[in-house]
């Protein structure tokens, strides 16, 4: 009598690596295409200025770089749960792992490439866009192309200088090339390189012109320089982005990007009014410190200016307000 034993061969293990790679490639490609073509146009801060446009691109590039990594991690996680889960009755140990040089090398090389890519991309974007709209301190390394001059004319290559002055809880904007005229409104001409000089009269504020992609800390006594060039007309929201006191949240106003000729008309009007009022003579064309005790008539003889007699008092002694 002969007996026949039926032997069942274990099913051939599929190539998990190829499966994972295939799935990952399709998902990563789809995600990157969606990010670049669908999401990017809506990413903050928009594309109203060249610095904002670059920031939008930067965020999209970072998202496109990060998406394949995130998808790989999540895909591997889900694939492991589904494919390599413990089946009912399977009480055996998993196979021992002794290391995998290929996996380790791929991981190290892959992450090194990603980090170096981000380093190079970030540096190029920072340098190539004159600081990417961020405050670079009093001696900027990356400057916007254009000459600096005591005057500014529409259509020229001269940088328009704007001193941004923060004060609890309002912003004012001084234009040194217009005799130091000042306004509570930020007005900028389109397609004109702008050099912001950001400072504060009291505590630390932060100048954030959202749609322009400009953000620079406003420190007392410090000239923080930032650059941008507006590329389309529209309104700009100016906010303080540094907690600066009880009404920090209300420290915002609106600016406008207008045509060069409209800007010229507006500047002439403001300058003319401030000249007539005499305020223009009292405003330094550019200053970082403002000493409220420097008043010629303080404590001196009584005078009448503009029909109003001055107190000639001495209620504000030197050293007051208290300085840190």
């Amino acid at each position, binding site marked *: 009598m002969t007996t026949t034993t039926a032997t069942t061969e274990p099913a051939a293990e599929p190539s998990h690596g190829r499966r994972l790679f295939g799935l990952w490639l399709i998902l990563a490609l789809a995600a990157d295409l969606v990010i670049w073509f669908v999401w990017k146009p809506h990413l903050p801060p928009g594309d109203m200025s060249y610095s904002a446009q670059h920031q939008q691109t930067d965020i999209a590039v970072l998202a496109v770089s990060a998406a394949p990594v995130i998808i790989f991690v999540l895909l591997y996680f889900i694939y492991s749960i589904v494919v390599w889960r413990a089946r009912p009755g399977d009480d055996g140990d998993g196979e021992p792992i002794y290391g995998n040089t290929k996996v380790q090398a791929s991981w190290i090389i892959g992450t090194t490439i990603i980090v170096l890519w981000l380093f190079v991309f970030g540096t190029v974007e920072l340098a190539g866009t004159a600081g990417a709209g961020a405050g670079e301190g009093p001696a900027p390394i990356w400057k916007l192309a254009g000459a600096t001059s005591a005057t500014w004319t529409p259509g020229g290559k001269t940088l328009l200088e704007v001193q941004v*002055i923060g*004060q*609890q*809880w*309002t912003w*004012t904007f*001084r234009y040194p090339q217009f005799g130091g005229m*000042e306004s*509570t*409104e930020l007005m900028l001409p389109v397609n004109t390189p702008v050099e912001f000089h950001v400072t504060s*009269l*009291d*505590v630390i504020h932060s100048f954030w012109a959202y749609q322009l992609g400009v953000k620079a800390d406003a420190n*007392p006594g410090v000239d923080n320089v930032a650059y941008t060039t507006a590329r389309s007309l529209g309104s700009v929201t100016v906010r303080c982005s540094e907690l600066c*006191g*009880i*009404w920090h949240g*209300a*420290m915002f*106003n609106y600016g406008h990007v207008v045509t060069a000729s409209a800007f010229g008309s507006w500047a002439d009007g403001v300058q003319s*009014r*401030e000249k007539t*009022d*005499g*305020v223009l003579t*009292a*405003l330094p064309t550019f200053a970082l410190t*403002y000493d*409220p*005790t420097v*008043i*010629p*008539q*303080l404590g001196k003889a*009584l*005078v*009448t*200016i*503009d*029909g*109003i*007699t*001055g*107190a*000639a*008092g001495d*209620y*504000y002694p030197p050293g*007051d*307000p*208290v*300085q*840190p």
Partner: protein
Amino acid sequence: MSVAARAASLLVAFVVVAGLGVFVALYYVGGASALPMVHYTASGGQVNVALQEDPQNNSASKPDWVSYYVQDPGNSQWVHTTLFSVPANTKVNVTIYGYDGCTPLRNNFFSQVQGTIGNTVTVSQFDQHGKEYVSDQRTSVVNAWANCNVGHTFAIPGMNLYVPVASPNAQLSANNLCSSSPCTPSGNPYAKETFSFMSPAQGGVFRWQCLVPCGGGFLDGNGGPMQTLGYMMGEMDVVSS
């Protein structure tokens, strides 16, 4: 202890702590912001608001802080508050009585009157005997850089309204400023300043403040009364009809 008993204990402890927190918040924080609101109503399409700024105030806790007062239109009494309401889309005529001495502006830009009808204010100055030595001087600037004649400012940044408020001439009055709040014209030197503006068409809350760093003794002059509702900062409620 059973699991149910433990859970019940935890729940009770949580309710006690949360209740304590709510009580503290309501009692202290809620109580602290209970400033009176003065309501102004329009008559003939206009509303008249009267404020005064004093070198001190009549509060029990911070009597030496410089402070604004708002006049109640019902009984003409001065209320120690900085909250008032006006109707929307109405001409608001403001009179500010400045009893405090001069305080230099940090930024002379705010010497310029901005946002009022005509971008001007009308200033009168009186000595302690009631003698009017400057009468109805209409000006677009209260010079704070060559002279010392700005006491404080009344600013509503959200409306681009910036008004420098003249101070009385203290030298003429031998430095005898009002020393008891709320101040009265009798026996005290003061400046009277009037101006008008249109309230916004839509309702809302508009903060107003003084831009002179007049919080003497505080860092950069911006602490104390400058940062406290009821003193040198306030809110104007614009009420839609």
